[in-house]
């Protein structure tokens, strides 16, 4: 019998029940919730007279709607009445069901996918779900983690299980090492440009190989965060010493003897040598360049040194039509270099790139420089704790002296549900995860890139 992949192992160890149609009930170890995708789930629970089965395995944060300034004013300071209502609804629901909650303003508050790992709640071998597609982030720890819809949120609250069908196994094998200055974000965008945004549909993707082993936990989180942009249900990296070092000592990490027991279990979490993957994609680490998007889909990515494509460069008529539409939306001309494209906005933040390592990389570029005239640049730390850590290292002063705005934590301009949005026609160098039409504001133009490239765009006023 063939060995098991990491995904097979986690799946098998969480199976509660499988019916004759092949649908399974999968036990959920951690359920993260936030204000936007839960109100209807709690309303459904109440209407059916059901309770929350495991409030202790549920953690709530407010992140999507929260303003990134003056959070000390509390919910009364949230000016958008709909956003305030949603935040108040979450506050009421978690109180009613006695669920642990890091509200806006709590130093532990922040973007749900930054908070889980930071608190040590995210651990190898777990199943983790959240009503947010970027839940794939937690796969960096060797946990099976993915986004779910609101009906599924209600299902997990009531049963602590998810109805699921097993996905196929894909290996993304990244050999060698990344070149100096090439980051996990560049690698992630490169992978999506190779496989396409639907390339991973129906699969769980395991990132493997030397280049992955050499990534920090922050880098692995960035990579797994973007697994969903390649269409995969989840991304995975097998845990190793880097993982254990990151978890050790965090508030919810196992302590004392429990640490040793947990760690010895975690070391069994890898794909067996004879495990069979349904699909294997090979990437050479050395061939990955600093990469960014030119269009309105994460797969429309090219190296920084590259040329923006023209519709006729694509043999596939669907891709050619998508190129034409994207060029028109982005206000770009095919056949010209991406380098030198002027930007008006810069956003450093989001569940993709708002951790301490990301802020350090951006600060290194910002240090001693000044944001170009006509550019508005924002830095939004992923959590209150990331913000505090950055301040203890003096990063806030570097950013402020260079002319960046130093904001309070939240999802912010990644999706623009709070007041941080692009005006029509504005072009933004963004460390976030989606460059869809209108994502950061109606008719706003988003280029996805690493914190280093985004900070450079802020200083130069152009991509480069």
């Amino acid at each position, binding site marked *: 019998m063939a060995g098991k992949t990491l995904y097979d192992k986690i799946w098998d160890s969480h199976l509660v029940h499988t019916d004759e149609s092949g649908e399974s*009930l999968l036990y959920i170890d951690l359920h993260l919730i936030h204000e936007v995708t839960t109100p209807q789930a709690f309303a459904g629970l109440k209407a059916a007279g059901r309770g929350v089965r495991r409030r*202790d395995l549920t953690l709530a944060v407010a992140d999507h709607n929260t303003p990134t300034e003056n959070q000390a004013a509390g919910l009364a300071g949230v000016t958008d009445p709909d956003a305030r209502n949603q935040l108040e609804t979450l506050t009421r629901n978690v109180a009613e069901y006695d669920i642990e909650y890091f509200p806006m303003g709590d130093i532990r508050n922040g973007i749900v996918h930054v908070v889980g790992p930071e608190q040590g709640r995210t651990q190898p071998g777990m199943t983790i779900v959240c009503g947010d597609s970027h839940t794939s982030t937690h796969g960096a720890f060797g946990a099976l983690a993915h986004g779910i819809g609101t009906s599924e949120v209600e*299902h997990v609250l009531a049963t602590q299980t998810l109805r699921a069908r097993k996905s196929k196994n894909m290996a993304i094998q990244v050999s060698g090492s990344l070149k100096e200055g090439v980051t996990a974000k560049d690698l992630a965008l490169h992978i999506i440009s190779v496989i396409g945004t*639907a390339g991973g549909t129906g699969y769980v993707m395991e990132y493997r190989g030397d280049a992955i082993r050499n990534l920090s936990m922050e880098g692995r989180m960035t990579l797994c965060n973007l697994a969903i942009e390649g269409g995969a249900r989840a991304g995975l990296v097998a845990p190793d010493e880097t993982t254990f070092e990151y978890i050790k000592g965090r508030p919810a990490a*196992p302590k004392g003897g429990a640490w040793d027991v947990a760690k010895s279990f975690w070391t069994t979490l890898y794909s067996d040598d004879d495990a069979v993957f349904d699909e294997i994609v090979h990437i050479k680490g050395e061939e990955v360049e600093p990469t960014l998007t030119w269009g309105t889909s994460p797969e429309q990515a090219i190296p920084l040194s590259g040329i923006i494509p023209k519709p006729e460069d694509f043999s596939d008529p669907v891709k050619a*039509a998508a190129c034409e539409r994207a060029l028109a939306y982005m206000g770009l001309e095919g056949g010209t270099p991406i380098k030198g494209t002027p930007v008006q906005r810069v956003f450093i933040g989001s569940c993709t790139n708002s951790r301490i390592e990301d802020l350090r990389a951006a600060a290194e570029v910002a240090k001693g420089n000044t944001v170009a005239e006509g550019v508005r640049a924002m830095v939004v730390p992923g959590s209150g704790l990331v913000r505090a850590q950055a301040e203890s290292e003096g990063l806030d002063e570097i950013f402020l002296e260079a002319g960046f705005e130093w904001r309070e934590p939240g999802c912010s301009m990644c999706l623009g*549900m709070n007041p941080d949005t692009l005006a029509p026609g504005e072009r933004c160098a963004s460390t976030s995860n989606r460059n869809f039409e*209108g994502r950061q504001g109606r008719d706003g133009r988003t280029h996805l890139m690493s914190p280093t490239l985004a900070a450079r765009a802020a200083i130069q006023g152009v991509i480069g």
Partner: protein
Amino acid sequence: MKAFTQLTGTAAPLLEKGKPMSNVDTDMIIPKQFLKTTERTGLSKGLFHELKTLSDGSSRPDFVLNRPEYATASILIAGENFGCGSSREHAPWALLDQGITCVIAPSFADIFHNNCYKNGILPVRLPVDVCQKLADQAGGSNHVFTVNLEAQIVTGPDGEIYAFEVDAGRKSNLMAGLDEIGSSLTAAGEIDTFEAQRRVSMPWLEKAS
């Protein structure tokens, strides 16, 4: 959830240069400003908001769902990878609020596909050329399509029949309009047993909170 068995109605094709539009993401289906609701209903006003309105907020008359012949369409025809991006269930809720209970496309993104089944919407996968053919025939008003879930066939206005695949479990749940939580709770005993074993084999997970 309302059961889905058979649907007879008109179809609206979502086109880009005459081809079913590919990679329609959930931000496009319903943009962020409509996600601040605490209800499941009333979301059709946000459906395809940036496609159906001009920058000044006025209606874009040439957008398919703004054209009178497609106003009552119950089927949407689109291109590959429909529903990619955000997990927002507001996307199927908005389609449902518009009266659309079936989406026909060559492929769907995973989370959106799941969300459809939770809301009584049938996502039908048909090959690219068939989607193109159906889109070409979707003239609104008297161009009627039939989607029969029991038989797993779509009948176009010209009478031609196309078979589609659907997971057996999902099919029966959709046809019954099943309360999934209620049905899952019939396995409560097995969940109890699993939790008891978990407490013993992975005790640190009990203390993770």
